[in-house]
């Protein structure tokens, strides 16, 4: 059954499939709720659910670190198995090793904060648009002013400063893919009041809290892409309903979303005027007996 192309077809088609997907989601969530008697067990279930997504978060968090700096824990790359247990042994038995590892962990977090600091002197001198553009370019993203070309940093991270003259020109599109932008960093981004297209693909530190801030861009934002962000779940997607002018939303490949097919249908219902590009809607649906692929070559039906 091909996905409908126009927005109009969607509503009736959604209703059919939503009930199927909702039933399976309901059963799993009820399974967690029903075992509330032995509370520990139920909560273990609930808390173990996001573990699968956590496994994907941790390696991206310490992508640039090795050995002693690693968070270890949930994910241990196979090659480092022996190193990890030695480190863990040392941490358990020596306070100094533990303190050193905690220090390195804090340094890692400080680095992300450092990257997300604002530039108040640029904002005073040139205005919020230039400050926002400078922030994005510094992070490694690309910026497009209205009626101008895309400004991108080169491989070494350097970019031309000629955009400093475009003080009154609003920023139309931002491509912040792969940037280390987090909640504080969004301050600079949200100052761009006339932003029409925002691409936040594969941002490792973008989470549900950040999505709740996007409502201030509701008047102008028409295109948003969140594909591949490891920390975004369906709970953050729920606060995208403020963006009523949105025409295109990309929520494919979100590992932390528990039920991608159902989430896509619910988001489509939430934003009726928007084209939602996501995963295959049939993910999570089990084929009925009459829809099983018939293998005519074999003597026994599949």
């Amino acid at each position, binding site marked *: 059954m091909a996905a409908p192309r126009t927005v109009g077809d969607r509503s009736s088609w959604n209703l059919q499939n939503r009930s199927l997907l909702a039933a399976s989601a*309901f059963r799993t969530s009820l399974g967690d709720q*029903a075992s509330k008697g032995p509370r520990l067990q139920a909560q273990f279930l609930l808390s173990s659910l996001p573990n699968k997504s956590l496994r994907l978060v941790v390696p991206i968090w310490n992508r640039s670190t090795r050995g002693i700096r690693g*968070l*270890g824990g949930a994910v241990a790359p196979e090659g480092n198995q022996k190193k990890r247990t030695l480190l863990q042994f040392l*941490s358990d038995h020596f306070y100094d090793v533990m303190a050193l590892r*905690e220090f390195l962990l804090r340094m890692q977090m400080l680095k992300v904060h450092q990257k997300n600091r604002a530039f108040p002197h640029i904002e005073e001198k040139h205005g919020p648009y230039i400050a926002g553009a400078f922030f994005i370019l510094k992070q490694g993203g690309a910026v497009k002013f209205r009626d101008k070309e895309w400004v991108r940093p080169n491989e070494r991270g350097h970019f031309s400063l000629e955009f400093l003259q475009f003080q009154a020109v609003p920023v139309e599109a931002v491509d912040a893919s792969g940037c280390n932008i987090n909640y504080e960093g969004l301050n600079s981004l949200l100052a761009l009041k006339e932003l029409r297209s925002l691409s936040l693909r594969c941002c490792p530190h973008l989470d549900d809290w950040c999505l709740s801030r996007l*409502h201030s861009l509701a008047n102008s934002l028409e295109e948003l892409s969140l594909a591949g962000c490891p920390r975004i779940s369906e709970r953050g997607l729920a606060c995208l309903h403020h963006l009523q002018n949105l025409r295109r939303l990309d929520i494919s490949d979100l590992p932390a979303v528990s039920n991608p097919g159902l989430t896509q249908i*619910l988001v489509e219902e939430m934003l009726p005027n928007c084209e939602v590009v996501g995963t295959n809607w049939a993910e999570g649906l089990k084929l009925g007996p009459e829809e099983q692929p018939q293998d005519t070559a074999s003597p026994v039906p599949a």
Partner: protein
Amino acid sequence: MLRRALQLGWSRGLFIRRLGTRRGGSSLDWDGNISEIKKKIQSFLPGGTWNPLYDTSHLPPEQSDVVIVGGGVLGLSVAYWLKKLEKIQGGIRVLVVERDHTYSQASTGLSVGGIRQQFSLPENIQLSLFSVSFLRNINEHLAVVDAPPLDLQFNPSGYLFLASEKGAAIMESNVKVQRQEGAKVCLMSPEQLRNKFPWINTEGVALASYGLEDEGWFDPWCLLQGLRRKVQSMGVLFCQGEVTRFTSSSDRMKTASEKEVILKRIHEVHVKMDNSLEYQPVECAIVINAAGAWSGQIAELAGIGKGLPGTLQGTKLPVEPRKRYVYLWHCPQGPGLEAPLVIDSSGAYFRREGLGNNYLGGRSPTEEEEPDPGNLEVDHDFFQDKVWPPLAQRVPAFETLKVCLVECPSASAGT
């Protein structure tokens, strides 16, 4: 005779075998033996409390600078901040006494888990803003080396308060205070409400206040586990027991304005172990009462409330356990993903739970209809009579719903 001798022989053999078992298990239980020996050695090495006469490993330490009564989310946060703000490492010794390590009756695990900034007192708003920034950066605050990061499952969907004509003026002044403190709240008219949430019936609603950011609900159990993990790694001692007595001393002193007061100081806390009469007196300097619904009882133990009525000593701590019902229902045509936590002017509230069209909700009963907290039975009539009618009137889709689960968390409420 022969049979008797044989019996004696048998019983002697059994007696000998019984002696063998009394010696401490068969030799096949090698791992168990090793761990017991290790425990004994550790107990008399320096650093542990050792009593040569009997095993005291289950008892709390004999001295502790601070004793926190209650190991729920508040008690653990106090322990966390005490340890975080100590100037030298190991400078302050903190003991957390928790009666029930499964937290089966604690408000923490059973709460709906909402956080909001829509209060009327500026202090409450500031506290909430601080909590929100703590929760947002929880993986930096509660980071433990070699442990996976916490996922609080925060839903930033916001709170929606609905006010009738009577409460509209109060709501407006409250929102003004909230915005002054920095909370992102907006006021909505009934028409704006209908545009944004078409599933609401705005009859009787004069004004609505909606939290745009930093409001929503999360998983409090995850927060509790994260705090426990971090606090244990910081060196806070835990003990499973119940506080039964405070030993205090009183002094007559004069204040700076030459007024005579009686200064009372707590010296010891008696912590009683589970299922036994054994107790350990813990010498302490400060006792923190974080017992949640039972704080009133702990305060009474300390003598708060025992005095002449009308004086400070005679005023009891106004906290007592209250019973609240939380219902989980399924409604296939209900509000979608964007539904915030809606609180009606009648006091009934609901929020979305998960993706399968399930909703969680309840209602705070009025003073007269307070249910008896001693009895933990659930009241289904309460739902039929008090919760469902206002909700069905507010959200017409809730006319057809099916209740799945009823819970009875005992919340503590200030009277």
